[in-house]
Structure formats: C-alpha cells, structure tokens
C-alpha cells in the first residue's frame, strides 16, 4: 500500500469511529442523559478511541513493516540518547561475537569442512593397531603402516575401490647446474594416490604405475615450489632437478589448492622410488600412511574386517617383529586435526562462555536502563500500549546493539582469524581457513541469539508489572524494584560463575604450560646451538667420505673461538621421537613367539655428543674415535633401557642385536642418563650408535654446539664453515635447544594464553557488572540510607550494608563457579602436564582473585553510599 492510501485509510477509520461515537452520544442524550454526562457515558461504552483506531489500522498495515520501522526509529533515538551505554554494549558484543566467530571459522575449516577431494565421505585412513594396551599408551594405537603390509592389504582385500599410501621424506634440492641448495620437505605417494583422491595435475601429469618402483626417478612439484623456485614457468615440466644429488625428471605440477597433508611439502616422488627393494618387503618398517576409498556398495566395517583378517595373518607370520594384530580407521580430518582438535574445542567453549558473560552483562545494563524508564513504560502501558509492542521495542534495542556489535565483531574476526592462523603453527589445512557463507550464517545467528538472550529477559521483567503498580511505585518505595534487583543479582551470579570456570581453566592451562617450560629435558638447554644437514648419498657414497666430512667439520667447529664443545648425532633431545627399532639381547633366552620384541628409540652420536649436550655418563664410557666403520660394533644405552631389560645385571659387555643396521650384535659400552625426546612425554628406552660406524642411517644429522655466549651469534660463522667444506650442502633448522623446546610447546602456550585472555576479559566484564548493579542499588536506596543515617547508623555500618549486598551475588557465583569447574576441568584434563585438574592452589588463587576484584568493584559504591548526607537524601525525595 502506498503512503497516500495509508493516509486515506487512516482518515476513513477516524471518521468511522467518530461518527459511531457521536451516534452513541446522541442515543445517550435521547435517553435523557445530560449532554455532559452523555459524552462521558459514550466514551465509557466505547473504550479508548485512539487504541481502537490504532488496532483497526493495524489490520491494514502492511506486514507490520510500519511497526518495525517505527520501533527502529525509536530504538535508534533511545540508543543515541545514552551514547555511553550504547558504546560499551556494542564493544562488549563486538569482542564476544568477534572472538566466537573467529574460533568458529577455524573450527569449521579444520574440523567440519570436508577436504576438496572426490567423494571425501568414502575416504578413510587405515593404521595398524596393537592390542597391547601398554603399546597404546605410547601412541602405537594408530601406528604407521609398513610397506609390505600395505601391498598385502591392497592385493588381498576387496572392500575398497583402491588403497594408496604415502610416506614422509626430505631432500636437499639442487638444480642441474648446482644452483643454491635447499632442504625441501617431501612425500612419496603411490602412483594411484592422486587418481584415487580425484586430484589432477595442474600442468603435466601424475605418476604412472611403472614409475612407482625403487629406481623410479620422476617428481611432481607442488604449486608453491613451482611458483617460488621456478617462477611459475611451465617449461620446468620435462626438465630435471637434483634431489640429494640424483637427477629426477619433473612430470607434473600439483594444483594450487592441493596442500595435503600439509602446506610445507614442496615435492612429491613416487612411493617406492629411492627405497631399497628389501625395505618394501618388510612388515616392520612403519612409515606409511594409508588412505583407502570404500566401495559404494560395501559397509566400512565389512571392508575393514577383511583388512583386519589379512593383518592378523601377517602378525602370526611375523611373531617376533612389531607387526600389529589389528587395524584402526580414522577420517582424514581426524588424522590431520588430531593435535588441534582438543585445544580448538576448549577455545570454542571458552569463547562461548565469554559470549554468555557478555550477553548477561548487556542484559544487566538493559535491566538498569529499563528500571530508569519504569515510569515511562507505566504511562505508555496505561495509555493502552500493548505488552508485545513494549517488548518488541526493547528487543529492537538489544537487536540493534547486537547487530552493531556483530558487524564490528565480524570485521574484527577477519583480522583475528588471520592472526590465529599465522600464530598457530599446528593448524592443518591453513590455506582454506576463511569466512564463507556458513560462517556468516553462524555470525548472524549469534547476533540474533545474543539479542534474544540480552533483550528478552529485561523486556519481559520490565513490562510484567501492571500499569498502576508502576505508576504508584515511587523511588522511596524500595519494594517496587525488588523483583528487578533480584533478576540483576541472578544474572550477576551466573556471570560470575561462568567467569570462575574460565579463570580456573586458564589457571590450570597456564600452570601446565609453566610446568612444561621448566621441565628438565636431561641435557644442556642454555647456550646450545643446533643445525641440521643431510649428506647426499650420491656424493658421499662411502663411510670414509661421510666420516671425513663430519670429522673435519667437528674439528673446525671445536677450534672456533667461543665454542666450548660440539657434538654430532641424529637428533637432539626435545626434537621428537624420530625412528625406533626392535632389538634382541643375544645373552638372554630367546623371546617367546607371539610376544613383540623390545623396542627403543634409535639415535646416533659421535664421541663428543654427550659431553657437548652435558648428558651424564652413568657407567662404562662414551664413544671414542675408534668406534668407527670396520672396528667392533658398539652401542650406548640410556638408563631406562638398562633398567627395563637388564634388571639386576651389568649391561656393559652384553650385546644388542638390531636388525636394520648391519644385522649385527653391538656391544654395550656405556649407560647414559635419560633425556626427554619431547617435552611433556615420559622418556623412552634409547640406544645410541656411533655416527662414525658407517652402517647407520645416512639421513639427517644434527650438529650441537655448546657456546660460551649467545649461541645464535655463532650460527653464521658455523654455516660458513659448512659451506666452505661443501657449497652444495643445505643447512636447515638453525635453532637453539631452547627454541626447539619452545616450538614444540607452541600449541600449549597459545591455548593457555588465549584462554587467559578470555578469562581476563570475562573478569573485567563481571566486575563492571558488579559495579553497575551495586551503583544502581545504592542510588535506589539513597532515601533509605538517608533515613538509617538520620536514625543514627554510622558510616561503617552503611559501608557494610552495601558491601554485603554486592558481595552476596559474588559469593554465590563463586561457589556455583567452583562447583561447575569440578565438572568442566574434565574437558582439559588430558591437556594438562604435571598439573592436577583439581589443583587446590589454582582453585584458591582464582577464588582469592575473584573476591579481591569483587571487593574492589563494590568499594566505590559502598564508599559513595557512606558519604550520603542524610538531610540532602531525605530532601531530594
């Protein structure tokens, strides 16, 4: 309907009512009532003409849009009338909605959105699974798959359309003419991996079946390497690049969006290429991830049971090798997000909590305002405004606040998401994290939920009273606002309880993080610089050449001024688990068939390794220059291995028989103290083999340098020494041990910091809420306090009175929050290290902090109340 039609209709309604009202009046007069009386009688019989005309017009109004526009106008005006309140409410909403949206964006991209593969619902990862529960405790319940297992699964089962495998690898990449060397992260994928995932090469092609063999020499580049190193120039396809000094032909480039399983990967080779053929026949080299595509007509459980049957047979055939009995499935998303799922859930719960607190706070502010407008609402009620109209108007206000906060919040969240993604290094699938339709829809529903939550309660409470009661209630009449005060106190109690839960979670996570940081890893952590390199097997093809390089380098580093010691080994403590191998002890009776062989972490070390890292020797000796290729084979074990496998015997002089390296007996010559392979994990049995013995894994080596001053200052001089020895050799991971530890704790530190931030914000909101309620209450009771003081109450008594009023909800909230925390800490229990979930110190500290903040928030209103001049207070009534 057009506006002029609306006008006409309005005039028509007025005229109709007027004529009928006149008629009523005439009839009354005709009955003999005096004209004056007739007018009133007609009005009485008729009712409220304004209201009737309004209701009649409402029949014609177009979908109530008119009403909404009117409410909008009124609400905007009301909000502008108190800019302070509006601004605070909008900021609170923006922070809460922004943080929640950000976290949801990450959760959606990482945990909820399927990967962009063909039919991702039918893809599943399959791992080996040991039945022994003690193995599961060491994270062997999802054990990587051995190549021979994978080949047997693929050949002997029929429930899956196809099965593909990929493995971790790392290369030193150089060009055909010895361009700048660089370490690149790589994966070896079976030839059918890309077709199975539905991934096509952006340029060129993917691998063929014949290329997936030990002498395969083709390579695919990921888009990032293609753009960065080859300038995005397609001529590179068909050319050769050198990996560890060996030529490989580039057959294709992967599309830009393909960053599975992580974005750091630069190169893909075929699964078998470069692997010795006998490793492919092994059932106990666990280094592959297997993805399978389920046949559409088969149930996952059926398909898996076939694989399980094959695996159990393999287990029976290899009783003395670590070949698992079962298999275990995992979705690809679960597999990628295993390290971040729990922190994400915790963070999302924390921001949800904060959003709740924010809404309650805005609700509290609105209750205060509606209390101030009590009279206005009473008058409008008496004039015939319907309750729904009043509620709708108040809801419109909270909706406006929420929308303004929501828009600001979503903008904030874009920045916050970027920050989160760049800070949180463990996040998988990073490039796909971003806001999309679902995230926007989520943000919109957040806005509406917050508006309802923060608006409905105050609106209902402020309009529930009858018109007369509202008008009769004077400010001297405290009873009139009793229910509203109770509502505010209840809101406050819930707010404080939620804050307590957040504070306790933050406290526990922080304490756990602090425990992690201060853990003794068992070696020197200050002034130790490490860097890694990997000697290419083509150039360094004999143990003599390898040893010559390593010994020359060590000699040069040790004579560098400022260097106290230097050592070389496969890994340093804190850098991860790395490889582990099964061993037997020839002096002991043979292991009964059917039990798994003992297993220990594999490390290599040079004669100076232990003294450079200050790992103490417990028995026997360190390696010497004589422990090298050609001389008797030796090994050093750690305390745990000695304790576990040589209970009361002297391990020195006994032997370890290790299959993969030389398939020989190694004499135990020393026992060293335990170190942590990763902070937060308990130590494992470890065996150290001499770097110089020639048959150790030629893979990466880590140089550890103990310096007398700031270790990073030595990084450039030492890298220069390496470059002088071999200009083609890339050096990677130049880090201090402290940095390695910090890096492995990044996850824990970020989670703890974020939850602490949310908790601090919540505490602030809660204290502002407490202050607001109490200030309002004190103003309400000015008259009463005036009377009390006039009757002889002392100022301390007034302070006590007001303080007690404010601290009561704080105490209730604290109790409620502490009780709720006992349940809530279960969520974070598994993330805690060296910290009890019910840590009494944390609970006590949180209670004390909260009480202190509450007292501070209450003191100002209480002091103000005590300064009331009784005469003044009574006169203003």
């Amino acid at each position, binding site marked *: 309907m057009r506006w002029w039609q609306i006008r006409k209709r309005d005039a*028509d309604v007025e005229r*109709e009512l007027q*004529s009928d009202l006149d008629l*009523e009046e005439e009839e009354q007069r005709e009955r003999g009532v005096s004209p004056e009386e007739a007018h009133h009688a007609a009005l*009485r019989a008729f009712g*409220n003409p304004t209201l009737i005309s309004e209701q*009649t017009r409402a*029949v*014609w109004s177009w979908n109530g849009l008119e009403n909404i526009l009117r409410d909008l106008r009124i609400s905007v005006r009301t909000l502008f009338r108190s800019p302070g309140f509006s601004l605070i409410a909008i900021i609170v909403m923006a922070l809460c909605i922004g943080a929640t949206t950000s976290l949801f964006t990450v959760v959606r991209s990482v945990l909820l959105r399927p990967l962009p593969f063909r039919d991702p619902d039918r893809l599943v990862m399959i791992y080996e699974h040991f039945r022994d529960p003690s193995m599961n405790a060491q994270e062997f319940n999802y054990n990587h798959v051995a190549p021979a297992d994978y080949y047997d699964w693929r050949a002997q089962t029929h429930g899956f359309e196809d099965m593909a495998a990929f493995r971790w690898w790392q290369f030193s990449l150089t060009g055909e003419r010895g361009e700048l060397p660089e370490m690149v992260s790589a994966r070896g994928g079976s030839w059918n991996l890309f077709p199975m995932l539905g991934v096509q090469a952006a340029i060129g092609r993917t691998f063929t079946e014949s290329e997936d063999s030990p002498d395969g020499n083709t390579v695919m580049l990921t888009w990032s390497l293609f753009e960065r190193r080859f300038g995005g120039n397609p001529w590179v396809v068909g050319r050769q690049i050198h990996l560890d000094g060996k030529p490989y032909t580039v057959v294709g480039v992967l599309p830009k969006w393909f960053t599975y399983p992580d974005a750091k990967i630069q190169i893909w080779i075929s699964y078998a290429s470069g692997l010795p053929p006998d490793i492919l026949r092994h059932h106990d080299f666990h280094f592959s991830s297997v993805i399978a595509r389920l046949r559409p007509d088969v149930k996952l459980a059926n398909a898996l049971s076939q694989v399980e049957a094959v695996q159990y047979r393999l287990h029976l055939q290899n009783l003395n090798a670590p070949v698992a009995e079962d298999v275990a499935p995992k979705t690809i998303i679960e597999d990628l997000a295993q390290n971040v799922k729990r922190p994400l859930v915790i963070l999302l719960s924390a921001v949800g909590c904060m959003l709740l607190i924010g809404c309650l706070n805005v609700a509290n502010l609105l209750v205060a305002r509606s209390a101030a407008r009590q009279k206005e609402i009473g008058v409008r009620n008496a004039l015939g405004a319907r309750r729904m109209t009043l509620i709708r108007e108040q809801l419109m206000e909270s909706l406006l606040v929420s929308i303004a906060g929501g828009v600001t919040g979503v903008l904030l969240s874009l920045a916050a998401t970027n920050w989160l993604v760049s800070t949180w290094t463990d996040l998988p699938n990073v490039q796909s994290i971003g806001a999309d339709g679902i995230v926007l829809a989520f943000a919109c529903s957040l806005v509406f939920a917050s508006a309802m939550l923060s608006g409905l309660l105050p609106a209902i409470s402020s309009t529930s009273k009858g018109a007369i009661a509202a008008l009769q209630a004077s400010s001297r009449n405290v009873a009139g606002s009793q229910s509203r005060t109770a509502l505010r106190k209840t809101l406050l109690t819930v707010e404080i309880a939620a804050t307590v839960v957040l504070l306790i979670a933050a406290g526990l996570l922080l304490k756990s993080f602090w425990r992690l940081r201060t853990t003794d890893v068992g070696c020197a952590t200050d002034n130790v610089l490490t860097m890694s390199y990997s000697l290419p097997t083509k150039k360094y093809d004999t143990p003599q050449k390898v040893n010559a390089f390593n010994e020359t380098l060590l000699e040069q580093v040790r004579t560098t001024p400022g260097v106290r010691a230097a050592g070389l080994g496969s890994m340093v403590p804190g850098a991860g688990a790395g490889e582990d191998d099964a061993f037997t002890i020839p002096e002991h009776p043979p292991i009964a068939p059917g039990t798994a062989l003992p297993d220990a972490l594999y490390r290599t070390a040079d004669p100076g390794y232990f003294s450079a890292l200050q790992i103490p020797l417990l028995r026997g000796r360190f390696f010497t220059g004589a422990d090298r290729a050609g001389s008797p084979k030796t090994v050093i074990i750690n305390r745990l291995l000695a304790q576990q496998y040589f209970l009361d015997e002297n391990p020195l002089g006994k032997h370890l028989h290790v299959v993969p390296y030389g398939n020989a007996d190694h004499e135990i010559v020393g026992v060293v103290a335990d170190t942590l392979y990763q902070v937060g994990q308990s130590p494992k049995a470890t065996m150290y083999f001499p770097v110089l013995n020639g048959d150790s894994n030629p893979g990466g080596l880590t140089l550890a340098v103990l310096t007398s001053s700031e270790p990073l200052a030595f990084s450039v001089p030492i890298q220069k020494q390496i470059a002088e020895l071999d200009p083609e050799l890339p050096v990677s991971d130049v880090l201090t041990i402290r940095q390695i530890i910090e890096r492995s704790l990044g996850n824990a530190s970020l989670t703890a910091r974020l939850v602490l931030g949310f908790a601090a914000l919540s505490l602030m909101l809660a204290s502002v809420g407490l202050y607001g309620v109490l200030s309002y209450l004190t103003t309400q009771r000015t008259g009463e306090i005036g009377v009390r003081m006039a009757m002889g109450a002392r100022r301390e008594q007034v302070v006590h009175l007001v303080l007690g009023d404010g601290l009561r909800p704080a105490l209730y909230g604290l109790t409620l929050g502490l009780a709720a925390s006992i349940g809530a800490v279960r969520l974070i229990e598994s993330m805690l290290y060296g910290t009890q979930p019910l840590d009494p110190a944390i609970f006590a500290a949180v209670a004390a902090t909260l009480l202190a903040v509450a007292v501070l928030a209450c003191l100002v209103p209480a002091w103000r109340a005590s300064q009331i001049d009784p005469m003044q207070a009574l006169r203003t009534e």
Partner: protein
Amino acid sequence: MSSMGKQTPQRANLLQGTLDMLILRTLLYGPAHGHQIGKHIQRTTNDFLQMQHGSLYPALHRLEQRGWVTAKWEVAPDRNREFKYYRLTDKGRKQLVVEESQWKRMAEAVARVMWPAAEEMR
C-alpha cells in the same frame, strides 16, 4: 476507561473467531454500520455478549480486507448524517455458511463431551 478493562462476571468473552460469524450473520438482514452491528449483537443476546469496540472495528476491517463485506459511506435514514455501512458480499455469504457449519460441528462435539447422558437417551 477501566470499564473496558474489566468485565462483569455475568458477561461472557467471545470465543476466538466467532465474532466474524456473528457480524456476517447480522449483516444477512441488510447493510448496517458498526454501531448498529454492535448494538444488535448485544441486544439479541440480552446483553450477555458485551460488544467490545476494540475488537469490533478491527474485525469489520478484517472482513472488508478479505472481501466478505464491502463498505460505503451512506446517509442514515433516521439521522441526517453519513455512516459507514457494511454490506455482505457473495463471498461473505459462502463464508457464513462455512463458519456456521463449523460452529455447529464444534458445538455438537463439545455437547457430546459435556453431556454424554443426554446423548444416550436419544
């Protein structure tokens, strides 16, 4: 003002939806204006049904919007003034039949629950 807010206990509130039917039925006698319709219903029920203007006028306009009645300003025969007269349309007649039969079924259903004995006796 308060008289419209409170009802004397002897008077009943109209059942939801029956007002439309009563108005349509009243208009069956011929065109009438709002005041007449209200008075007629009130008088016919011996003041049992107290007509509330707050619901009468919105109801009239709702019927007009649905096309069941038409409205026209006409001079009243006994007063020398124009009133807004409502007149039943063909659509309105059909609607009256529909609502009447619905009401009958409703009333019978209620009666069967309330006075089952009377039902058996029949």
